[in-house]
């Protein structure tokens, strides 16, 4: 019973994320593309939820669907002068096609080689506390260094954007 329910939910979410990604790439309006991206992010958050990774699901929706998508919309809003500028011509380049085929074949090789080796799912999903413990013990060093990277980004942005005061 739950298997079927999970399967149906997965099918819906998978359709939403892949379909949304296709929608994002094919729409000619950058504004619409940003909203399609938002939809993809929410759908992927749902996939995390399906895997009982509540924390990841919430963070994914908060950061990607919330912050990143809103930033995209701000960038579009601030950089476009006229409404018509939001519509871009459909750009089909040979370079893009080659890259797509290249990356597609890499994914195909990976699935063909390792697709049958699905990791055993634990009977009970580890909770958020376990994730936090791991983050602050085993991975404390890269976790703290990540905060320095963010600090550098903030300092750089402030330095660049402030008025020249001399």
């Amino acid at each position, binding site marked *: 019973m739950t298997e079927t329910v999970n399967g149906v939910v997965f099918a819906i979410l998978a359709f939403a994320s892949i379909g949304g990604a296709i929608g994002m790439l094919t729409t000619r309006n950058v504004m619409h593309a940003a909203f399609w991206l938002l939809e993809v992010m929410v759908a992927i958050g749902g996939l995390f939820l399906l895997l009982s990774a509540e924390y990841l699901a919430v963070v994914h929706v908060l950061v990607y669907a919330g912050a990143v998508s809103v930033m995209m919309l701000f960038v579009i809003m601030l950089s476009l002068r006229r409404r018509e500028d939001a519509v871009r011509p459909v750009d089909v380049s040979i370079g893009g096609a080659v890259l797509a085929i290249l990356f597609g074949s*890499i994914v195909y*090789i*990976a699935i063909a*080689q*390792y697709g049958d080796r699905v990791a055993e799912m634990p009977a009970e999903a580890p909770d958020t506390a376990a994730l936090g413990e791991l983050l602050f013990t*085993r*991975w404390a*060093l*890269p976790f703290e*260094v*990540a905060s*320095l*990277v963010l*600090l*550098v*980004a903030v*300092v*750089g942005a402030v*330095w*660049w954007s402030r008025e*020249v005061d*001399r």
Partner: protein
Amino acid sequence: MLSGYWHFLPEVLVVAAALAALFGEYLPGKDRGTAYLGAVVAALAALLVAFGGTAAPMVFGQVEPDGIARFARTGVAGLTAVWLLWVAGRGMPGERRREAVALALFAASGGMLLSMAEDLIVMYIALELSTMPAYVLMGYRRSDVPGLEGSLKYFLLSMLTSIVMLYGLSFVYGISGTTAFSGIDLSAGGILGVIAVLLVLVGLLAKMSAAPFHYWAPDAYAGGAPVAVAFVSTVPKIAGIAVMTRLFGAIAPGVPALPLVLASAAALSMVLGNLAALPQSDIRRLMAYSGVAHTGYLLMALAAGTSMGYIATVFYAVAYAVPSMAVMLVAAEEGVELSDLAGLARTRPWVAWSMLVWLLSLIGIPPLAGFFGKLYLFGAALDAAMVWLVVLGVVTSVISAGYYFRVVREMFLAEPGAGVADAADGAVVTARSRSAATALVLCAVATIAIGLAASPLLASLGVRL
């Protein structure tokens, strides 16, 4: 559990100084004092590393302060100290100094951590910390359109290749089931292992400005202020090379194609870099292409894949970085056009003679640092039976003398020009300063001393001569 954590003391000091520099307004001496403080702390960190000894892998095996890490960390911290000393004297053109000081120190701490990374996650995050400040330093002059363009190109390409590298790292993790370098085994991956390594190489080669991913470097450097280029083009490179020796040491046994790939990139970098540098008249472009060529020499010994090759690579990374930074600092003082150096031997003889030392070292004339560096590189490649690569290296080294000697001819034979043309647009700093002069003298002394002390230094890296 906390035993051995004092090995992180140099990094902690550097980060603390970086945080203090952000509050430079309240420090005694304001901007100048901030830069001096940074220089002193970075020099202290370099001494602590140099005399701090080595240790087994620590922090869950994620870092290993071994001989290679010690050498690279000393180089990173020491060069940062020299750069900050110069900045304390002459300042950043058209800007206040404190943010630049903080960013340089952050980059140094990232580079020092990167040099001892033994884990994919630590490697990636340290790589970002050591390159992120570079984007900011390269494009900080907002009114300068070519500078912004170069900086944007650098940022976008660097980010794109970072993503490609992450994609490759995800396969490396998927095949070996661990992110620790010690547990990486790609032999089970077959063709997928080769693909993963190629993707990782795209990221690393682009950050090292190696051919065929070098084309961002000349444009980015030619747009940046020369003082920023001096830092960005040298210090992160040492750390990047150090971590490449560690990563490839772990990957190489499972990927038989790796030496061939690295050797081709090395050959391409040496030929393209040296030939493209020949006609340049902008010193920043000239040094950018020369940097591509020197990355080629470094990759040659990486391709050898022996422990002697790895040690020679790290040794040469430092032996290249010192004179390269010094040449860019002189360009920051005198102007970025080759003709700005005209008659330097008459107007500032000691600078001209120091320049001669650095350029001869870059060509590889004994007894300077560059000669012994290249000797060990070529020796390691010969041991690995890559004769064609060594022949190519020697031939391109001779070609490189062509453009380095153009600089020498300009300094010693040309008439002094009508003064610095770039002073008006704020690209160079003309004010004389004792601490900037000290920084240059230190670079000249180091270039000679690394050459004279080559064998004890190599012994400290773990070579039995």
